[in-house]
């Protein structure tokens, strides 16, 4: 057991007051692998990924990236370490255009000797890189600058996923990426997940859509009441076992 994983979480524990949201959770993902995290509402999935992406801090336990412990003290730390997250609410800025959304918090700017906030934005570079990104990921969003608030649900989702795809050097985490999407739009997002995996990312997907999990995930862990209760290879013949793990029935 000395192999190092791209991301490994061990003994993760998080309390909110009297509620123990995470209870000694162990988990790992490797590069080029898609891990699905399943579980009913309140199982602790979202808390887990928020701890990994620095939104919450763990009360106990460690998070290691390529074998090195990283203290996820803030989202900025997690992003700098190469972890990108697509939140359920997308964390988009409706008042900004798609380029500004792609680069939010990571604006290309100079000169580098100035503090980050004082630098001048390289707007043309950002626009060029954004359109390259859109081309590379083959996503379908309006080319010209209109605010993201004016776009459809699928386009907004595509922008959030593309932002994560663009900057995730190690781990990409997607919380319910296909919820509230139509067939065609879900397809786009699933293709993006596969492309991320093929580019060597470790991908974690939280989803309720069992069909999508079957399609893209290499492994699936099931959480219940803040702990990991089982792991399966998501194949059609394991579907019932996964569902019973999720709902907590006997198996």
């Amino acid at each position, binding site marked *: 057991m000395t192999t190092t994983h791209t991301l490994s979480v061990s003994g993760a524990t998080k309390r909110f007051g009297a509620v123990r949201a995470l209870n000694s959770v162990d988990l790992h993902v490797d590069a080029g692998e898609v891990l699905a995290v399943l579980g009913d509402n309140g199982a602790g999935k979202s808390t887990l990924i928020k701890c990994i992406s620095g939104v919450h801090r763990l009360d106990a336990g460690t998070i290691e990236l390529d074998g090195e412990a990283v203290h996820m003290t803030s989202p900025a730390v997690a992003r700098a370490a190469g972890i990108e997250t697509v939140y359920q609410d997308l964390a988009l800025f409706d008042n900004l255009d798609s380029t500004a959304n792609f680069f*939010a918090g990571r*604006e290309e700017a100079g000169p580098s000797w100035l503090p980050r906030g004082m630098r001048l934005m390289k707007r043309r570079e950002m626009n060029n890189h954004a359109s390259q990104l859109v081309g590379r990921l083959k996503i379908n969003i309006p080319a010209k600058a209109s605010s993201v608030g004016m776009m459809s649900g699928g386009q907004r989702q595509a922008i959030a996923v593309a932002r994560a795809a663009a900057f995730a050097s190690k781990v990409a985490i997607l919380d319910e990426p296909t919820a509230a999407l139509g*067939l065609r739009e879900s397809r786009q997002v699933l293709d993006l997940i596969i492309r991320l995996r093929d580019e060597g990312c470790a991908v974690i997907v939280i989803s309720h859509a069992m069909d999508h999990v079957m399609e893209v995930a290499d492994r699936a862990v099931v959480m219940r009441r803040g702990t990991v209760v089982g792991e399966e290879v998501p194949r059609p013949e394991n579907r019932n076992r996964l*569902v019973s793990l999720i709902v907590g029935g006997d198996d």
Partner: protein
Amino acid sequence: MTEHIPVKQGASQAASAVAPAPESNAIASPVRLKSLGVLLGTLRIGPVLILLLLVAIMSQLSPVFMTAQNVGNVLVQSAAIAILAIGQLLVILTRGIDLSVGSTLALASVVGALVYAETGGGAATIIAMLLAGLFIGALNGFGYVYGKLPHPFIVTLATLSIARGLALGLSGGQPISGMPDIVNTIGAGSVARWLPNATFLVAGVAIIVAFLLTRMVWGRWIYAVGGSPEGARRLGIPRNWVLVSVYLISGLLAGVAAIVYSGRLNSGSPTFGQLAELDAIAAVVIGGASFLGGRGKVSHALIGALMIGVIRNGMNLLNIEAYLQLIVVGLVIYIAVQTDVIRGRLEAKFRVLKAAAE
């Protein structure tokens, strides 16, 4: 565990994608989309149109209105409000509000007058005014962010009272007359005997703040924090510092406005700037920035301040009584906020139509 609903969702999606849309819809939708787009565009430039209309009406009603002397009057009367409004814009962009700027202006003017009386130095006076503004701005920013208050309304209401109290206490409740030449030149001087020097100061402030907002990363962060405070935090934008900074700048600009005000009246007084915070907030909203945060430009603050200046000046010229002026300004504010709300609703409609058209 609810196993997702791929069947149902897929079916409805497939139906809308495959089935040919009813003919009336196919034609009406792009037309409605386009007309809605035009309407939204008009709303966006609405404040400029209204300002032009106001100017046109006033120059018809009063022969004095368009004289160089009176235009100078309007500009000088709008200058302090415009500077306060630019600071207020930054705060409102982050979904905040700064109620303290009028009192801060008074405090800065009193502090400036006292420092001038003590030292007789122009630079020292100006620096003292700016520091007084920054001081109240710091109370607001740090009090709001690190006091973990849910909204800046109360903390800036507190400093509204504190700053006015300090101004009254320091001055003994009396105006203190006498300001250095440089302050008088800025506040009361003019070019060609009509174009006020203060207008150049406003232009300078506007250019600097517009540059910060549109070119600097920090400006982008202000919009991001206004667009989605929680999203900004999750993407690693230093939200707390962005919030503190806008209150600091709003306070600093209240100090700058105090220079204009004190220079115009050659004194510092604890009664300066009463209700100026409301004018500043009104200017931002009337000018076309969104009171809900995230949307707005420096030009909106300037146009709003000019609009208030023109309305006040115009009604004075027409001998309209003060109480009516208050009512009119109030109505204009209401209409502006209502327009903002309608714009938001139209945009949502636009989004739905557009999604349907794809």
